[in-house]
Protein backbone atom coordinates (compact mmCIF):
# COMPACT_ATOMS: atom_id res chain seq x y z
CA UNK A 1 0.00 0.00 0.00
CA UNK A 2 1.22 3.51 -0.72
CA UNK A 3 1.34 6.06 2.08
CA UNK A 4 1.84 9.78 2.38
CA UNK A 5 1.97 11.31 -1.09
CA UNK A 6 2.09 10.24 -4.73
CA UNK A 7 4.64 12.49 -6.41
CA UNK A 8 6.48 10.26 -8.85
CA UNK A 9 6.02 6.88 -10.48
CA UNK A 10 9.47 6.12 -9.06
CA UNK A 11 8.05 6.23 -5.52
CA UNK A 12 6.12 3.03 -6.15
CA UNK A 13 7.71 -0.37 -5.69
CA UNK A 14 6.70 -3.08 -8.15
CA UNK A 15 4.47 -4.75 -5.54
CA UNK A 16 2.84 -1.48 -4.55
CA UNK A 17 2.07 -0.73 -8.18
CA UNK A 18 0.62 -4.19 -8.85
CA UNK A 19 -1.45 -4.00 -5.63
CA UNK A 20 -2.77 -0.63 -6.64
CA UNK A 21 -3.73 -1.96 -10.07
CA UNK A 22 -5.58 -4.91 -8.56
CA UNK A 23 -7.42 -2.62 -6.14
CA UNK A 24 -8.32 -0.44 -9.12
CA UNK A 25 -9.69 -3.50 -10.89
CA UNK A 26 -12.02 -4.25 -7.97
CA UNK A 27 -13.13 -0.63 -7.81
CA UNK A 28 -13.79 -0.65 -11.56
CA UNK A 29 -16.00 -3.71 -11.13
CA UNK A 30 -17.94 -2.04 -8.33
CA UNK A 31 -18.51 1.16 -10.27
CA UNK A 32 -19.81 -0.86 -13.22
CA UNK A 33 -22.61 -2.07 -10.94
CA UNK A 34 -25.99 -0.45 -10.34
CA UNK A 35 -24.76 1.74 -7.48
CA UNK A 36 -21.59 3.61 -8.36
CA UNK A 37 -21.11 5.33 -5.02
CA UNK A 38 -19.13 3.97 -2.07
CA UNK A 39 -19.14 5.48 1.43
CA UNK A 40 -15.40 4.98 1.97
CA UNK A 41 -14.13 8.57 2.01
CA UNK A 42 -17.20 10.22 3.52
CA UNK A 43 -16.17 13.41 5.32
CA UNK A 44 -12.83 13.76 3.52
CA UNK A 45 -12.12 16.78 1.34
CA UNK A 46 -10.17 16.55 -1.90
CA UNK A 47 -8.99 19.76 -3.55
CA UNK A 48 -8.22 19.83 -7.26
CA UNK A 49 -5.56 22.52 -7.50
CA UNK A 50 -5.10 23.13 -11.21
CA UNK A 51 -2.69 25.83 -12.34
CA UNK A 52 -2.72 24.45 -15.89
CA UNK A 53 -5.68 23.65 -18.09
CA UNK A 54 -7.00 20.12 -18.07
CA UNK A 55 -10.20 18.32 -19.03
CA UNK A 56 -9.55 14.63 -18.51
CA UNK A 57 -7.39 14.63 -15.41
CA UNK A 58 -9.46 17.10 -13.43
CA UNK A 59 -12.80 15.49 -14.28
CA UNK A 60 -11.31 12.06 -13.67
CA UNK A 61 -10.06 12.98 -10.19
CA UNK A 62 -13.34 14.71 -9.42
CA UNK A 63 -15.35 11.65 -10.49
CA UNK A 64 -13.06 9.31 -8.55
CA UNK A 65 -13.35 11.36 -5.35
CA UNK A 66 -17.11 11.70 -5.66
CA UNK A 67 -17.61 7.97 -6.23
CA UNK A 68 -15.85 7.42 -2.90
CA UNK A 69 -18.13 10.04 -1.26
CA UNK A 70 -15.38 12.60 -0.65
CA UNK A 71 -16.19 16.29 -1.01
CA UNK A 72 -14.45 17.91 -3.96
CA UNK A 73 -13.33 21.49 -4.30
CA UNK A 74 -12.16 22.56 -7.73
CA UNK A 75 -9.63 25.30 -7.96
CA UNK A 76 -8.30 26.63 -11.23
CA UNK A 77 -5.78 29.41 -11.43
CA UNK A 78 -7.91 31.33 -13.88
CA UNK A 79 -10.54 33.26 -11.98
CA UNK A 80 -8.75 32.85 -8.62
CA UNK A 81 -6.48 35.09 -6.59
CA UNK A 82 -3.51 33.53 -8.39
CA UNK A 83 -4.25 35.90 -11.24
CA UNK A 84 -3.83 38.69 -8.66
CA UNK A 85 -0.36 37.36 -7.89
CA UNK A 86 -0.98 35.06 -4.93
CA UNK A 87 1.90 32.64 -4.37
CA UNK A 88 1.74 28.85 -4.19
CA UNK A 89 2.57 29.07 -0.50
CA UNK A 90 -0.33 31.38 0.32
CA UNK A 91 -2.71 29.31 -1.78
CA UNK A 92 -1.57 26.14 0.01
CA UNK A 93 -1.97 27.72 3.44
CA UNK A 94 -5.47 28.85 2.52
CA UNK A 95 -6.37 25.28 1.60
CA UNK A 96 -4.81 24.00 4.84
CA UNK A 97 -6.93 26.43 6.83
CA UNK A 98 -10.02 25.10 5.08
CA UNK A 99 -9.17 21.52 6.03
CA UNK A 100 -8.19 19.77 2.81
CA UNK A 101 -7.30 16.07 3.28
CA UNK A 102 -5.79 15.61 -0.17
CA UNK A 103 -4.54 18.05 -2.78
CA UNK A 104 -4.39 17.01 -6.40
CA UNK A 105 -2.00 19.44 -8.02
CA UNK A 106 -1.28 20.22 -11.65
CA UNK A 107 1.32 22.92 -12.13
CA UNK A 108 3.40 24.27 -14.97
CA UNK A 109 6.63 24.07 -12.96
CA UNK A 110 8.47 20.77 -12.54
CA UNK A 111 8.71 19.93 -8.85
CA UNK A 112 5.68 21.93 -7.70
CA UNK A 113 4.03 18.87 -6.13
CA UNK A 114 7.21 17.93 -4.29
CA UNK A 115 7.52 21.49 -3.05
CA UNK A 116 4.06 21.24 -1.48
CA UNK A 117 4.82 17.83 0.02
CA UNK A 118 8.21 18.81 1.48
CA UNK A 119 7.19 22.06 3.13
CA UNK A 120 4.96 22.50 6.15
CA UNK A 121 2.56 24.73 4.23
CA UNK A 122 -0.10 22.07 4.14
CA UNK A 123 -0.57 18.72 5.92
CA UNK A 124 -2.69 17.05 3.25
CA UNK A 125 -1.72 14.10 1.06
CA UNK A 126 -0.30 15.51 -2.17
CA UNK A 127 -1.05 13.82 -5.49
CA UNK A 128 0.94 14.94 -8.50
CA UNK A 129 -1.40 15.36 -11.47
CA UNK A 130 1.33 16.67 -13.76
CA UNK A 131 4.16 19.05 -12.88
CA UNK A 132 5.76 20.85 -15.81
CA UNK A 133 7.74 18.47 -17.99
CA UNK A 134 8.54 16.20 -15.03
CA UNK A 135 5.95 13.55 -14.11
CA UNK A 136 2.32 12.49 -14.24
CA UNK A 137 2.21 9.27 -12.18
CA UNK A 138 -1.54 8.56 -12.28
CA UNK A 139 -1.41 8.68 -16.09
CA UNK A 140 1.31 6.01 -16.04
CA UNK A 141 -0.77 3.91 -13.65
CA UNK A 142 -3.85 4.09 -15.85
CA UNK A 143 -1.75 3.27 -18.91
CA UNK A 144 -0.28 0.23 -17.14
CA UNK A 145 -3.81 -0.76 -16.09
CA UNK A 146 -5.06 -0.46 -19.67
CA UNK A 147 -2.13 -2.47 -21.08
CA UNK A 148 -2.70 -5.17 -18.47
CA UNK A 149 -6.43 -5.21 -19.18
CA UNK A 150 -5.88 -5.81 -22.89
CA UNK A 151 -2.71 -7.89 -23.00
CA UNK A 152 -2.17 -9.63 -19.67
CA UNK A 153 -4.25 -11.67 -17.27
CA UNK A 154 -4.83 -10.91 -13.60
CA UNK A 155 -1.75 -11.71 -11.66
CA UNK A 156 1.19 -11.16 -13.92
CA UNK A 157 3.29 -8.07 -14.53
CA UNK A 158 4.14 -6.68 -17.98
CA UNK A 159 7.19 -8.85 -18.73
CA UNK A 160 7.63 -9.41 -22.46
CA UNK A 161 5.45 -6.53 -23.60
CA UNK A 162 7.12 -4.12 -26.01
CA UNK A 163 5.87 -0.56 -25.76
CA UNK A 164 6.67 2.18 -28.28
CA UNK A 165 6.37 5.71 -26.92
CA UNK A 166 6.36 8.00 -29.93
CA UNK A 167 6.71 11.75 -30.16
CA UNK A 168 7.73 14.63 -27.95
CA UNK A 169 9.61 12.79 -25.19
CA UNK A 170 11.48 15.99 -24.29
CA UNK A 171 8.46 17.85 -22.92
CA UNK A 172 6.40 14.83 -21.92
CA UNK A 173 5.72 14.13 -18.25
CA UNK A 174 3.56 11.22 -19.43
CA UNK A 175 6.57 9.62 -21.11
CA UNK A 176 8.78 10.07 -18.04
CA UNK A 177 6.28 8.49 -15.66
CA UNK A 178 5.51 5.71 -18.11
CA UNK A 179 9.17 4.83 -18.62
CA UNK A 180 9.65 4.58 -14.85
CA UNK A 181 6.55 2.51 -14.18
CA UNK A 182 6.38 0.27 -17.25
CA UNK A 183 10.03 -0.76 -17.05
CA UNK A 184 9.58 -1.46 -13.33
CA UNK A 185 6.69 -3.75 -14.24
CA UNK A 186 8.91 -5.62 -16.68
CA UNK A 187 7.89 -4.08 -20.00
CA UNK A 188 10.41 -3.24 -22.70
CA UNK A 189 10.10 0.44 -23.64
CA UNK A 190 11.28 1.97 -26.93
CA UNK A 191 11.30 5.73 -27.31
CA UNK A 192 10.75 6.86 -30.89
CA UNK A 193 11.34 10.53 -31.63
CA UNK A 194 13.37 12.94 -33.70
CA UNK A 195 16.70 13.65 -31.92
CA UNK A 196 15.57 17.20 -31.17
CA UNK A 197 12.68 15.92 -29.07
CA UNK A 198 14.71 13.59 -26.84
CA UNK A 199 15.91 14.90 -23.47
CA UNK A 200 19.59 15.20 -22.53
CA UNK A 201 20.80 12.08 -20.73
CA UNK A 202 18.17 9.80 -22.26
CA UNK A 203 20.99 7.33 -22.94
CA UNK A 204 20.99 6.48 -19.23
CA UNK A 205 17.28 5.59 -19.15
CA UNK A 206 16.43 1.88 -19.13
CA UNK A 207 14.99 2.07 -22.66
CA UNK A 208 15.84 1.58 -26.32
CA UNK A 209 15.91 4.62 -28.58
CA UNK A 210 14.99 4.84 -32.23
CA UNK A 211 14.63 7.68 -34.72
CA UNK A 212 12.64 5.61 -37.19
CA UNK A 213 9.03 4.69 -36.47
CA UNK A 214 8.64 2.43 -39.52
CA UNK A 215 11.43 0.11 -38.38
CA UNK A 216 9.76 -0.40 -34.99
CA UNK A 217 6.04 -0.47 -35.70
CA UNK A 218 5.78 -4.11 -36.75
CA UNK A 219 7.37 -5.59 -33.63
CA UNK A 220 5.54 -3.89 -30.79
CA UNK A 221 2.54 -4.75 -28.61
CA UNK A 222 1.62 -1.22 -27.63
CA UNK A 223 2.10 2.02 -29.51
CA UNK A 224 1.62 5.10 -27.36
CA UNK A 225 1.41 8.34 -29.33
CA UNK A 226 2.28 11.52 -27.42
CA UNK A 227 0.67 14.85 -28.06
CA UNK A 228 2.75 17.43 -29.88
CA UNK A 229 2.50 20.21 -27.32
CA UNK A 230 2.05 23.14 -29.63
CA UNK A 231 2.22 25.51 -26.64
CA UNK A 232 5.80 24.31 -25.99
CA UNK A 233 6.91 24.29 -29.64
CA UNK A 234 8.12 27.88 -29.87
CA UNK A 235 11.67 26.74 -30.68
CA UNK A 236 11.91 24.89 -33.96
CA UNK A 237 12.18 21.24 -32.97
CA UNK A 238 11.11 20.04 -36.40
CA UNK A 239 10.83 21.83 -39.75
CA UNK A 240 7.10 21.62 -40.34
CA UNK A 241 4.10 19.90 -38.78
CA UNK A 242 3.55 18.12 -42.07
CA UNK A 243 7.02 16.62 -42.06
CA UNK A 244 6.65 15.53 -38.45
CA UNK A 245 3.31 13.95 -39.21
CA UNK A 246 4.72 12.04 -42.17
CA UNK A 247 7.70 10.64 -40.27
CA UNK A 248 6.32 10.17 -36.77
CA UNK A 249 2.53 10.26 -37.06
CA UNK A 250 0.32 7.21 -36.80
CA UNK A 251 -1.67 6.84 -40.02
CA UNK A 252 -3.62 4.02 -41.61
CA UNK A 253 -0.57 2.67 -43.47
CA UNK A 254 1.36 2.27 -40.20
CA UNK A 255 -1.75 1.04 -38.40
CA UNK A 256 -1.99 -1.80 -40.93
CA UNK A 257 1.56 -2.89 -40.09
CA UNK A 258 0.79 -3.39 -36.39
CA UNK A 259 0.55 -6.93 -35.13
CA UNK A 260 -2.92 -8.36 -34.72
CA UNK A 261 -3.15 -8.00 -30.94
CA UNK A 262 -1.38 -4.64 -30.68
CA UNK A 263 -3.15 -1.66 -29.14
CA UNK A 264 -2.95 2.08 -29.81
CA UNK A 265 -2.85 4.51 -26.89
CA UNK A 266 -2.82 8.28 -26.51
CA UNK A 267 -2.91 10.24 -23.24
CA UNK A 268 -5.06 12.98 -24.80
CA UNK A 269 -5.91 15.57 -25.82
CA UNK A 270 -5.24 14.45 -29.39
CA UNK A 271 -4.15 16.62 -32.30
CA UNK A 272 -6.02 14.64 -34.91
CA UNK A 273 -4.12 14.77 -38.18
CA UNK A 274 -0.81 15.65 -36.53
CA UNK A 275 0.55 12.83 -34.35
CA UNK A 276 -2.42 10.54 -34.96
CA UNK A 277 -4.80 10.37 -37.90
CA UNK A 278 -8.53 10.40 -37.24
CA UNK A 279 -9.04 6.88 -38.57
CA UNK A 280 -6.23 5.53 -36.34
CA UNK A 281 -7.75 7.22 -33.29
CA UNK A 282 -11.14 5.65 -34.02
CA UNK A 283 -9.82 2.22 -35.08
CA UNK A 284 -10.72 -0.95 -33.19
CA UNK A 285 -7.11 -1.19 -32.03
CA UNK A 286 -7.43 2.16 -30.29
CA UNK A 287 -8.00 1.92 -26.52
CA UNK A 288 -7.97 5.67 -25.95
CA UNK A 289 -11.50 5.71 -24.51
CA UNK A 290 -10.63 2.77 -22.22
CA UNK A 291 -7.72 4.82 -20.91
CA UNK A 292 -10.12 7.58 -19.88
CA UNK A 293 -12.50 5.11 -18.24
CA UNK A 294 -9.70 3.32 -16.41
CA UNK A 295 -8.35 6.65 -15.19
CA UNK A 296 -11.30 6.96 -12.81
CA UNK A 297 -10.76 3.51 -11.28
CA UNK A 298 -7.01 4.02 -10.90
CA UNK A 299 -7.50 7.42 -9.25
CA UNK A 300 -10.11 5.94 -6.91
CA UNK A 301 -7.51 3.35 -5.88
CA UNK A 302 -4.91 6.08 -5.26
CA UNK A 303 -7.35 8.15 -3.18
CA UNK A 304 -8.44 5.05 -1.27
CA UNK A 305 -4.88 4.05 -0.44
CA UNK A 306 -3.82 7.57 0.56
CA UNK A 307 -6.97 8.59 2.47
CA UNK A 308 -8.87 5.38 3.23
CA UNK A 309 -7.10 4.19 6.34
CA UNK A 310 -5.54 5.73 9.40
CA UNK A 311 -3.20 8.53 8.41
CA UNK A 312 0.25 9.07 9.84
CA UNK A 313 -0.11 10.42 13.37
CA UNK A 314 -3.84 9.61 13.49
CA UNK A 315 -3.87 6.13 14.99
CA UNK A 316 -6.44 4.77 17.40
Amino acid at each position, binding site marked *: *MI*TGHLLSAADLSKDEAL*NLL*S*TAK*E*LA*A*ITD*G*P*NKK*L*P*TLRGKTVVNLFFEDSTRTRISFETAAKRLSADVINFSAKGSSVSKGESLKDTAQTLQAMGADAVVIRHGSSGAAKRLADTQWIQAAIINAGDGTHEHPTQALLDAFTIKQHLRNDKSDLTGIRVLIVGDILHSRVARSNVLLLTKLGAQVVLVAPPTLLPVGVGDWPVEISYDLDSQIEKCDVVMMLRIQLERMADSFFPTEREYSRRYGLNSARLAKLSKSAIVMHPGPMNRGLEISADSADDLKSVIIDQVKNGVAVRMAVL*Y*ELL*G*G*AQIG*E*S*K
Partner: protein
Amino acid sequence: MSILLSSSDIDRAIKRISHEILEHNQGITNLVLMGIPTRGAYLADRISAFITEIEGPVATGVLDITLHRDDLRLRPPKPLLPTKLPPGGIEGKDLVLVDDVLFSGRTIRAALDAIGELGRPRSVQLAVLVDRGHRELPIRADYVGKNIPTSKSESVKVHLSEYDNEDLVELIK
Protein backbone atom coordinates in the same frame (compact mmCIF):
# COMPACT_ATOMS: atom_id res chain seq x y z
CA MET B 1 -4.04 -22.41 23.52
CA SER B 2 -6.69 -25.10 23.21
CA ILE B 3 -8.35 -26.80 20.28
CA LEU B 4 -12.06 -26.06 19.99
CA LEU B 5 -12.92 -27.91 16.77
CA SER B 6 -10.97 -30.64 15.02
CA SER B 7 -10.98 -31.31 11.31
CA SER B 8 -13.85 -33.80 11.59
CA ASP B 9 -15.82 -31.41 13.86
CA ILE B 10 -15.54 -28.72 11.19
CA ASP B 11 -16.64 -31.20 8.55
CA ARG B 12 -19.71 -32.25 10.54
CA ALA B 13 -20.63 -28.64 11.33
CA ILE B 14 -20.49 -27.70 7.64
CA LYS B 15 -22.70 -30.65 6.71
CA ARG B 16 -25.25 -29.82 9.41
CA ILE B 17 -25.32 -26.13 8.39
CA SER B 18 -25.82 -27.19 4.76
CA HIS B 19 -28.82 -29.34 5.71
CA GLU B 20 -30.28 -26.56 7.87
CA ILE B 21 -29.93 -24.05 5.02
CA LEU B 22 -31.72 -26.43 2.65
CA GLU B 23 -34.46 -27.19 5.16
CA HIS B 24 -35.10 -23.55 6.00
CA ASN B 25 -35.10 -22.36 2.37
CA GLN B 26 -36.90 -25.44 1.01
CA GLY B 27 -34.25 -26.33 -1.55
CA ILE B 28 -31.83 -24.49 -3.77
CA THR B 29 -34.04 -22.77 -6.33
CA ASN B 30 -33.86 -19.24 -4.93
CA LEU B 31 -30.69 -19.67 -2.87
CA VAL B 32 -27.41 -17.72 -3.15
CA LEU B 33 -24.36 -18.25 -0.90
CA MET B 34 -21.95 -15.33 -0.43
CA GLY B 35 -18.70 -15.92 1.49
CA ILE B 36 -16.81 -13.09 3.19
CA PRO B 37 -13.08 -13.31 2.38
CA THR B 38 -10.77 -14.76 3.29
CA ARG B 39 -11.96 -17.83 5.19
CA GLY B 40 -15.69 -17.22 4.85
CA ALA B 41 -15.27 -17.57 1.10
CA TYR B 42 -13.69 -21.01 1.51
CA LEU B 43 -16.44 -22.05 3.94
CA ALA B 44 -19.07 -20.93 1.42
CA ASP B 45 -17.34 -23.05 -1.23
CA ARG B 46 -17.42 -26.08 1.07
CA ILE B 47 -21.11 -25.61 1.91
CA SER B 48 -21.79 -25.10 -1.79
CA ALA B 49 -19.93 -28.31 -2.69
CA PHE B 50 -21.86 -30.33 -0.11
CA ILE B 51 -25.24 -28.92 -1.17
CA THR B 52 -24.32 -29.68 -4.79
CA GLU B 53 -23.73 -33.29 -3.75
CA ILE B 54 -27.14 -33.70 -2.12
CA GLU B 55 -29.48 -31.40 -4.08
CA GLY B 56 -27.61 -29.96 -7.06
CA PRO B 57 -25.54 -26.85 -7.85
CA VAL B 58 -26.17 -23.70 -5.83
CA ALA B 59 -25.21 -20.14 -6.83
CA THR B 60 -22.15 -19.08 -4.83
CA GLY B 61 -20.18 -15.84 -4.72
CA VAL B 62 -17.66 -13.80 -2.75
CA LEU B 63 -18.36 -10.47 -1.04
CA ASP B 64 -15.49 -8.16 -0.09
CA ILE B 65 -16.54 -5.71 2.62
CA THR B 66 -13.34 -3.67 3.08
CA LEU B 67 -14.78 -0.41 1.76
CA HIS B 68 -17.74 -0.59 4.13
CA ARG B 69 -15.93 -1.27 7.40
CA ASP B 70 -16.63 1.25 10.16
CA ASP B 71 -13.09 0.81 11.51
CA LEU B 72 -11.52 1.80 8.18
CA ARG B 73 -10.26 5.04 9.69
CA LEU B 74 -8.65 3.24 12.62
CA ARG B 75 -6.26 1.03 10.67
CA PRO B 76 -3.95 1.32 7.68
CA PRO B 77 -5.82 0.70 4.43
CA LYS B 78 -5.95 -2.89 3.16
CA PRO B 79 -5.80 -4.03 -0.46
CA LEU B 80 -9.24 -4.88 -1.81
CA LEU B 81 -10.15 -8.53 -2.38
CA PRO B 82 -12.28 -9.62 -5.31
CA THR B 83 -16.07 -9.52 -5.09
CA LYS B 84 -17.62 -12.20 -7.30
CA LEU B 85 -21.32 -12.12 -8.00
CA PRO B 86 -22.93 -15.41 -9.03
CA PRO B 87 -24.27 -15.36 -12.62
CA GLY B 88 -27.90 -14.83 -11.57
CA GLY B 89 -27.02 -11.90 -9.29
CA ILE B 90 -28.65 -11.43 -5.87
CA GLU B 91 -31.79 -9.49 -6.81
CA GLY B 92 -34.83 -11.13 -5.16
CA LYS B 93 -32.79 -14.11 -3.92
CA ASP B 94 -32.53 -15.69 -0.48
CA LEU B 95 -28.95 -14.82 0.32
CA VAL B 96 -26.92 -16.67 2.94
CA LEU B 97 -23.82 -14.81 4.15
CA VAL B 98 -21.03 -17.13 5.27
CA ASP B 99 -18.22 -16.14 7.63
CA ASP B 100 -15.81 -17.96 9.93
CA VAL B 101 -16.23 -16.24 13.33
CA LEU B 102 -19.10 -14.07 14.57
CA PHE B 103 -17.84 -11.66 17.23
CA SER B 104 -18.78 -7.97 17.46
CA GLY B 105 -21.14 -8.15 14.47
CA ARG B 106 -19.42 -5.23 12.74
CA THR B 107 -18.22 -7.32 9.80
CA ILE B 108 -21.79 -8.43 9.17
CA ARG B 109 -23.08 -4.86 9.39
CA ALA B 110 -20.50 -3.90 6.75
CA ALA B 111 -21.56 -6.91 4.67
CA LEU B 112 -25.21 -5.80 4.81
CA ASP B 113 -24.14 -2.38 3.49
CA ALA B 114 -22.06 -4.02 0.75
CA ILE B 115 -25.06 -6.15 -0.27
CA GLY B 116 -27.15 -3.00 -0.50
CA GLU B 117 -24.77 -1.73 -3.19
CA LEU B 118 -25.20 -4.88 -5.26
CA GLY B 119 -28.95 -5.30 -5.22
CA ARG B 120 -31.95 -6.18 -3.07
CA PRO B 121 -32.18 -9.81 -2.03
CA ARG B 122 -35.53 -11.11 -0.75
CA SER B 123 -33.92 -12.19 2.52
CA VAL B 124 -30.45 -12.24 4.06
CA GLN B 125 -29.43 -15.02 6.45
CA LEU B 126 -26.16 -15.60 8.25
CA ALA B 127 -24.13 -18.80 8.65
CA VAL B 128 -20.97 -18.87 10.79
CA LEU B 129 -18.63 -21.63 11.84
CA VAL B 130 -18.07 -20.19 15.33
CA ASP B 131 -20.18 -17.79 17.38
CA ARG B 132 -18.00 -16.49 20.22
CA GLY B 133 -20.43 -13.92 21.66
CA HIS B 134 -19.64 -10.31 22.69
CA ARG B 135 -21.94 -8.69 20.15
CA GLU B 136 -21.73 -4.91 19.83
CA LEU B 137 -24.64 -4.67 17.41
CA PRO B 138 -28.13 -6.25 17.25
CA ILE B 139 -27.05 -9.06 14.89
CA ARG B 140 -27.49 -12.84 15.26
CA ALA B 141 -26.59 -15.87 13.17
CA ASP B 142 -29.22 -18.17 11.62
CA TYR B 143 -26.86 -21.14 11.31
CA VAL B 144 -24.03 -21.73 13.78
CA GLY B 145 -21.36 -24.43 13.63
CA LYS B 146 -20.54 -24.11 17.31
CA ASN B 147 -21.34 -21.63 20.07
CA ILE B 148 -18.19 -21.01 22.07
CA PRO B 149 -18.35 -18.80 25.18
CA THR B 150 -15.11 -16.82 25.29
CA SER B 151 -13.61 -14.01 27.28
CA LYS B 152 -13.00 -10.77 25.40
CA SER B 153 -9.26 -11.04 25.96
CA GLU B 154 -9.10 -14.41 24.18
CA SER B 155 -9.12 -14.82 20.44
CA VAL B 156 -10.52 -17.53 18.21
CA LYS B 157 -8.46 -18.59 15.21
CA VAL B 158 -9.93 -20.62 12.37
CA HIS B 159 -7.53 -22.57 10.14
CA LEU B 160 -8.82 -23.97 6.85
CA SER B 161 -6.80 -26.30 4.66
CA GLU B 162 -7.37 -24.16 1.52
CA TYR B 163 -5.52 -21.25 3.14
CA ASP B 164 -3.70 -22.49 6.27
CA ASN B 165 -2.83 -26.09 5.25
CA GLU B 166 -4.94 -27.63 8.05
CA ASP B 167 -8.50 -27.70 9.40
CA LEU B 168 -8.61 -26.50 13.00
CA VAL B 169 -10.31 -23.99 15.29
CA GLU B 170 -8.30 -22.92 18.30
CA LEU B 171 -8.71 -20.61 21.27
CA ILE B 172 -5.73 -18.36 21.99
CA LYS B 173 -5.63 -16.88 25.49
